[in-house]
């Protein structure tokens, strides 16, 4: 295994000495999502983005749970582990914590990450394990054929909720920020350029990066994000969240409100200087959290981009440091010392 040197981003992962292309990352397996599924666009975006990193392909691992999106690892010619429902962050934690030389990705969905696996997700985030978590959010259960999910809107009519769902949905960005995440972003399957720009930042971030990807399930929840794709209105409702830039859409802007919070106003009604400038590096996550609340109830305006991106030691590095400290203080482990370490006596 590679010797650990402290570092950021991708510095601990061996680089490829040959130029890579998209085809290097395609496996020989036939892709079997429904025709028209948003997963195709995400897969293509990831496959065409990975060569840019220039990492040794064998040092990249995709770990997934269960659900349509979790088939993802089979279609990439890297190491892959298609695990069990909800547990991908736990499995990836053991892998990433013990192998700082790997780029470990978790592919998950809204049911996988937020329902059955919610506990693992929040703990991976607070620990800041070195993972890139791509959360495909289609607001529905696809693989089990169309039940409502923890991100479905209240009142969702599905097979399991013929009279409408009762539970309030999670906002994944708010949840991640509340769980002490160091990198939180949202993007959308149909905007490859934006998706890849977010992946670029996410992979450069050492620690857990959570990327929510709005993804269309054209079978069970078609057009869930249609407003964000409709050329007529998308530029008006998409609030661009970019570090150092005013938070705004074509016609709307985010400003401080009189009550101390933030609000969305008509772009034309405020001076440029009054528009809130996004600071993704702010230590205090409360403003990022406030931003994440702007998409309630649904799609009047939706913040898209990187909400939070702060430096915090990654879990594998902290773990390795303790090991090194123990070796420095006590010397490397010797079995005979260990066994003789207690009160011993000799017979004969």
């Amino acid at each position, binding site marked *: *295994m590679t010797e650990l040197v402290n570092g950021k981003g991708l510095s601990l992962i*061996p680089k490829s000495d040959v130029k890579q292309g998209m085809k290097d990352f395609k*496996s020989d*397996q036939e892709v079997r999502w429904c025709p028209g599924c948003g997963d195709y666009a995400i897969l293509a975006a990831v496959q065409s983005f990975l060569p840019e990193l220039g990492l*040794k*392909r*064998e*040092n*990249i*691992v995709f*770990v997934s749970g*269960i659900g349509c999106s979790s088939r993802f*690892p*089979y279609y990439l*010619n890297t*190491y*892959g*582990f*298609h*695990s*069990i429902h909800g*547990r991908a962050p*736990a*499995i*990836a*934690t*053991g*892998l*990433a*914590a*013990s*192998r700082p*030389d*790997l780029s470990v990705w978790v592919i998950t969905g809204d049911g996988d990450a937020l329902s059955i696996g919610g*506990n*693992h997700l*929040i*703990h991976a985030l607070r620990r800041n394990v070195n993972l890139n978590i791509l959360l495909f959010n289609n607001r529905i259960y696809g693989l089990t054929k169309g039940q409502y999910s923890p991100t479905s809107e209240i009142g969702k009519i599905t097979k399991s909720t013929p009279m409408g769902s009762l539970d309030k949905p999670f906002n994944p960005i708010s949840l991640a920020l509340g769980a002490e995440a160091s990198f939180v972003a949202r993007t959308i399957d149909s905007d490859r350029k934006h998706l890849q720009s977010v992946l670029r930042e996410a992979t450069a971030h050492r620690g857990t990066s959570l990327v929510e990807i709005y993804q269309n399930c054209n079978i069970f929840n078609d057009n869930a994000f249609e407003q964000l794709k409709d050329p007529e209105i998308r530029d008006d409702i998409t609030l661009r969240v970019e570090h150092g830039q005013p938070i705004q859409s074509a016609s709307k802007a985010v400003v401080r409100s009189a009550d101390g919070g933030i609000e969305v106003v008509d772009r034309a009604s405020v001076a440029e200087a009054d528009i809130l400038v996004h600071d993704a590096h702010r230590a205090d996550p409360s403003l990022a959290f406030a931003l994440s609340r702007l998409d309630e109830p649904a799609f009047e305006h939706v913040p898209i981009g990187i909400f939070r991106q702060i430096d915090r030691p990654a879990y594998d590095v902290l*773990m390795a440091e*303790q*090991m090194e*400290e*123990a*070796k420095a*203080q*006590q*010397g*490397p*482990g010797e*079995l005979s010392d*260990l*066994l*003789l370490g*207690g*009160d*011993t*006596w*000799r*017979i*004969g």
Partner: protein
Amino acid sequence: MTKQVQQLDRVIIRFAGDSGDGMQLTGDRFTAGTAEFGNDLSTLPNFPAEIRAPAGTLPGVSSFQLHFADHDILTPGDAPNVLVAMNPAALKANLGDLPRGADIIANTDEFTKRNLQKVGYDGNPLEDDTLGEWRVHAVPLTSLTVRALEGFDLSKKDAERSKNMFALGLLSWLYHRPTEATISFLEQKFAKKPDIAKANIAAFQAGWNYGETTESFSVSYEVKPAKLPPGVYRNISGNQALAYGLIAASVQSKLPLFLGSYPITPASDILHELSKHKRFGIRTFQAEDEIAGVGAALGAAFGGALGVTTTSGPGVALKAETVGLAVTTELPLIVVDVQRAGPSTGMPTKTEQTDLLMAMFGRNGESPLPIVAPMSPSDCFDAAIEAARIAVKYRTPVMLLSDGYLANGSEPWKLPEISELPDISVAYTTEPNAEDGTFLPFKRDTETLARPWAIPGTAGLEHRIGGIEKADGTGNISYDPNNHDRMVRVRQAKIDGVDVPDLQVDDPDGEAKVLVLGWGSTYGPIAAAVRRIRKSGGKVAQAHLRHLNPLPANTGEILKSYDKVLLPEINLGQLALLLRARFLVDIISYNRVRGLPFKAEELAGVIQDVIDGD
């Protein structure tokens, strides 16, 4: 005054008090002194799950039993010769186990009207004839301790807390135990509070001197050192031995150890112990839950580590799906189950052997895995290495079934020669294995049926594994009916083919008609019972299973070669069920599930009945 010294060949002492009285520490220190003196010994801590149950009540009683002898012994003893009762609750809770004529050392200061009423004594048993069958030594332990510490700048309450050290000093005098180790232990334990250290040492010495001068004790006892095989010894508990075994397995396999674990009684001490030894390159991960503990261990195993998770029965239930994933992805994994009384929360601090069938079958689908069970506290060391050997050689999860009795019990352990520990290293796969130069992650070793272990970072061997059924060879997703049938059978065949040593039978003259079989922690009581039978001229054979899956190849042959097979288990007959189904042998079961180990006398009676039976 010259006191009489009497020679004994063995003694069983039980320290009992409130769970806040420090009885476990007192027992531990007496054990350390006894080990240092060279007796063979065996211990049985027994404590409530409540950290501090209401003071003076029966549920709050904590005890520590120690059996030591001038010869090799196998159990912590059936019935105490001496009971140290720190309060009326401790007396009442333990009196039923005390044979007639045994000594009772009672702390009279705690036998107040209120404390007596708490446990339902109308009068004071120390003063009426309730204890007429026993030899009572009424000692005001608390007030003697307070008086001994008068010169110290301590509150009365703090002074009273040292009464366990006074008791330890008294018992150390009574049984001629060396004192140096306890004194240096106290100095170390309270290194940052030298006043407390001095007070405890003073209380300890006062207890010793009290024994020397008081007329309540006219006799002291000597138990000569035992003649044990030559070597270097230490006293060790099962959990500590298991942790050391895992470290040794890491060294001997040349694999970094990754422990994913969630705190649970009675397994937590393994997590505590391993987390102290990071200098061995060990990573210990206290997970958010049981599932994450095993998940992280499996993820680390995919990355090339020796993945381990430690838990008890309720945790195994939660881990089942991930263990199934390890079965089907064929990755090495060690699952340690320190069994405790169930079902559900059961009795967390009490022992049981009730997880065998869960270990065998507690997963969905055909999901076989090897099972190894240690037979004594120190054997947990070897059993852990054996579990690791099987896991890495066959690329499979292995269940290691310890239990609460082994975990917390202790015995002298003759330290192994490091050079004689088995080399259990295996090589990661680094080259393509197919004729066309590609890599087939499920192409098996023809002898072991193990698949290659190619870890991330290995160029050219990129592959995908998962919980969905895999095509033989390529590991690609497959729903082909014949492929699934073949894969189910080959996974079973791999486990059935694990190399386990033959079952050994102890049948000195080969004339026994009855075989007593056991597994796991019942070894000590069964072997002690067998000794008793043989001492009285009876003939009985003994065999003990260490590998529960697969079973040794000669198991059926041995079972069938005896007229009767008796199988004591601390469950309702789980191994008996397996053996009956497999070998069609009419096993005679003896089952008790009281949360306690068997007693030798009890089992001797059962064996005798089977010998005498028609």
